[in-house]
């Protein structure tokens, strides 16, 4: 090689390093420019925040970083970069939009089975006054832009859902005639019999919106506009957002501090966009994430870890015997009941007898998910008294291969191979598929496992072009109503787009019962109990779905910086989930308010 060449070589090498620095520099410029409009107002805030963090400045230049000891890092909820803070865009909004910024009238506490008044101040049950519902709106609450939150905002929110089909809560208020604000109360009137159950759900699931801002949004866009400058009543305001994370800043004058004594001890909450399981685990164990709502396979191996490399202890909600995790939703084996042999009840019962939920949950989740009960209703509903144990003991088809073979013999099954679908890349479900395949093989049912893309799977289920599929039902709830709606809803159309009754099971009497349950005043518990018992009995006898296991409310907390995480044993018995539908509807915010710094600063 000639000398000139080697000089070239050196130049190349410096060149490549320079290219790396340069492109990364551009990356940083791009990333920072991607922060939301809110950043203009808040970057100074976070800059001032960093001055309190002694270690984060270097070389005299002030670095925009969050002081570690005053920041709670969460993860496990966001599957994409935070770009949307519209609480009505339920498929899209950034973690924290509902709960940290927008709040509901009530929080539902599945553990104690009670409604905690939130933006409403009166007890939930006391609202039903004849055929009307009267909401007393808590006074003295302000939107984060300084405007007062009033009964008018509540009435506006209800009426918006009532009049605009794009509002995701429109079904909840289908029976509402009008909502009228007067002073600090809102009176909701109904067209005929109130849809008690669905409207009750509205009270704790739906966010209250600021009328002065929402009324200027075009009607067609109320559920899709990005709302990059969210104005809410919640404990935090939006700080910054970029591809990797969204950061919120604690509001010093959150109404609940004065009214209920709740306050966040952290100054910032940063929710990090999900990565792969292993990366989440790495971030969690490295102390970069404090609160993780990821499903982390094998995480129970670290349950006993005291100290570890970075001096952490992992906390779970439950104990080992409780499978560590709170049960969050039910996973079913869903038979297509319009196809033979799944249209034969004996075949469906054979499936139920052949499958061993305990073994499946153990094989797939290795101890961090609980096997499902025969009705599939979550343990919180069971402890709330919704599961009729005598019905269960009388009718349930529990694991018994001998009975499975007997039932199979009368099912008209002729040995054909049936497909079992689960979305490609859902690794735990894909494992479950093979376990189910083996268990069914053992009683003589042949299964072919297929893994379509999740869109394709949705299309298959919508249109009823499948044999067997894995599916899960909506999560923690205050009543079994939505569970049974999901099972029994009629009529069945060519496309079951709303994802109800995907198994296409037709039982008019059961659907009538479900509809009837919705119109019964929640105080009439005996009538409700009898309806739900019947629905459970029919479920067990007809086996339209075969419940397999409960997905956990996956939660693990690292105690390096924050302690007193929600736990079934401590004083913080709240829902440990930042997921949409949990945070901002259930007691997650109360759980967050109980966190205390690990080290007194």
């Amino acid at each position, binding site marked *: 090689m000639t000398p000139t060449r080697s000089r070239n070589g050196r130049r190349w090498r410096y060149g490549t390093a320079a290219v790396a620095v340069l492109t990364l520099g551009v990356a940083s410029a791009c990333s920072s420019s991607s922060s939301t409009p809110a950043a203009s107002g808040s970057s100074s805030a976070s800059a001032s925040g960093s001055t309190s963090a002694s270690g984060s400045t270097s070389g005299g230049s002030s670095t925009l970083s969050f002081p570690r000891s005053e920041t709670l890092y969460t993860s496990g909820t966001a599957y994409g970069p935070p770009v949307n803070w519209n609480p009505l865009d339920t498929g899209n909004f950034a973690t924290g939009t509902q709960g940290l910024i927008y709040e509901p009238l009530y929080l539902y506490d599945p553990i104690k089975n009670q409604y905690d008044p939130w933006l409403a101040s009166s007890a939930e049950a006391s609202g039903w006054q004849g055929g009307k519902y009267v909401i007393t709106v808590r006074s003295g609450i302000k939107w984060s832009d300084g405007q007062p939150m009033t009964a008018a905002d509540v009435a506006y929110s209800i009426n918006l859902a009532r009049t605009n089909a794009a509002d995701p809560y429109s079904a909840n208020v289908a029976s509402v005639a009008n909502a009228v604000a007067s002073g600090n109360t809102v009176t909701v009137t109904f067209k005929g019999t109130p849809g008690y159950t669905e409207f009750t759900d509205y009270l704790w699931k739906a966010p209250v919106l600021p009328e002065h801002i929402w009324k200027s949004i075009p009607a067609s866009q109320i559920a899709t506009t990005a709302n990059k400058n969210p104005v809410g009543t919640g404990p935090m305001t939006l700080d910054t957002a970029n591809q990797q994370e969204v950061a919120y800043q604690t509001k010093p004058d959150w109404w609940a501090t004065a009214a209920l004594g709740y306050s966040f001890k952290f100054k910032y909450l940063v929710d990090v966009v999900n990565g792969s*399981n*292993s990366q989440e685990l790495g971030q969690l164990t490295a102390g970069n994430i404090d609160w993780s709502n990821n499903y982390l*396979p094998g995480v129970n*191996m670290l349950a006993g870890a005291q100290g570890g490399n970075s001096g952490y202890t992992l906390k779970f909600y439950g104990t080992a015997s409780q499978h560590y995790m709170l049960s969050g939703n039910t996973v079913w084996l869903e038979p297509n009941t319009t196809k033979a042999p799944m249209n034969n009840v004996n075949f469906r019962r054979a499936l139920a007898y052949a499958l061993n939920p305990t073994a499946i949950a153990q094989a797939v989740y*290795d101890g961090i998910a609980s096997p499902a009960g025969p009705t599939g209703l979550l343990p919180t509903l069971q402890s709330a008294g919704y599961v009729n144990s005598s019905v269960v003991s009388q009718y349930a088809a529990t694991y018994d291969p001998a009975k499975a073979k007997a039932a199979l013999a009368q099912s008209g099954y002729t040995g054909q191979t049936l497909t079992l679908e689960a979305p490609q890349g859902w690794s735990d479900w894909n494992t479950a598929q093979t376990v189910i395949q083996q268990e069914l093989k053992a009683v003589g049912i042949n299964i072919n496992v297929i893994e*379509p893309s999740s869109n394709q799977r949705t299309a298959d289920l919508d249109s009823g072009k499948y044999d067997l599929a894995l599916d899960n039902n909506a999560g923690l709830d205050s009543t079994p109503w939505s569970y049974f709606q999901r099972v029994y809803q009629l009529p069945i159309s060519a496309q079951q787009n709303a994802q109800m009754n995907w198994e296409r099971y037709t039982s008019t009497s059961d659907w009538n019962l479900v509809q009837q349950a919705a119109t019964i005043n929640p105080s009439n518990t005996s009538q409700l109990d009898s309806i739900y018992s019947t629905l459970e009995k029919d479920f067990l006898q007809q086996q339209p779905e075969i419940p397999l296991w409960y997905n956990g409310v996956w939660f693990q907390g690292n105690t390096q910086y924050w302690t007193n995480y929600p736990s079934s044993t401590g004083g913080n018995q709240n829902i440990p989930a930042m997921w949409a539908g949990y945070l901002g509807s259930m007691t997650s915010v109360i759980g967050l308010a109980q966190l205390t710094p690990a080290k007194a600063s």
Partner: protein
Amino acid sequence: MSESISEAAAPEVAAVGLPSVRGVGAAPRKRNDFLYYGLRNKKLVFGLGLELILVLVALIGPMLAKYQPLQTTLPLQHPGSQHWLGTDLTGYDMYSQLTNGLRESYLIGALGAAFAAVVGMALGFIAGWRGGWVDELVQMITNVIVMIPSLVLLVVIGSYLSSRSILFEGAFIGLTTWPWVARAVRAQTFSLRGREYVELARLSGKRPVSIILKEIAPNMASYLFLAVILLFGSSMLIAASYDFLGLGPSGTVSIGWILNQAENGSALLYHLWWWFVPPVAVLTAMVAALLIANVGLDEVFNPKLREQ
């Protein structure tokens, strides 16, 4: 000889050398000469020996497994007498998975190489033989295919397919890697076309197909052989990437799939080394052995390259 393209790299396995074979067209050397140098070429003996052992493992290994590859047993077992290579989080026996994965890798390698070789040779021969606009067209197609990023294409196609077979994966790999073979074969055919014996065959009225098969192909046999070996190795590597991304054949166990599972199961953080180190080592050995044998063979076919 203005096209140095013929000396370009195989996909994935970079330019492991298939510099244009200069011995092409030289009178075929004696077979026992190849054998003599072949047996004395350390690289060839080592590479082929290692490959042979791995092929045997792929053939016999699964029969010795105590468990099915997708049979759940006790999770998280360390390697030992019960589970030779331990078990993963789900309780899959890693020995069984690895040996079955090995089988699938070879299958994919063979399929990918076969598809690429058939398409590449056919087009390369046609382009080199016919020349003119046919050549221009084939070259154009070749260059276009080269510029379409295949993994991204597979991602796009694969994400719409509900189930993919091994045949699909092999065919896809073959159909995206053939341009490399086609270029090389074209250049060689071009240079052989003008040889006297080819002229003679042409003048004597033989059909082009038979000239290509009987006169040209045998003269680049060693070259084609080397090319196929490289394709074999690169197909296995490409398949590992696809499987790692979850785009591999559904319902089967492959080495890339095992790595995908290990990644999903946080094997790194739990320090479950037996979950991912053996598959990586085995696949690396499979491909490295092929590459080493390839260079050895090249030295045998091409006396100039032998060690001095």
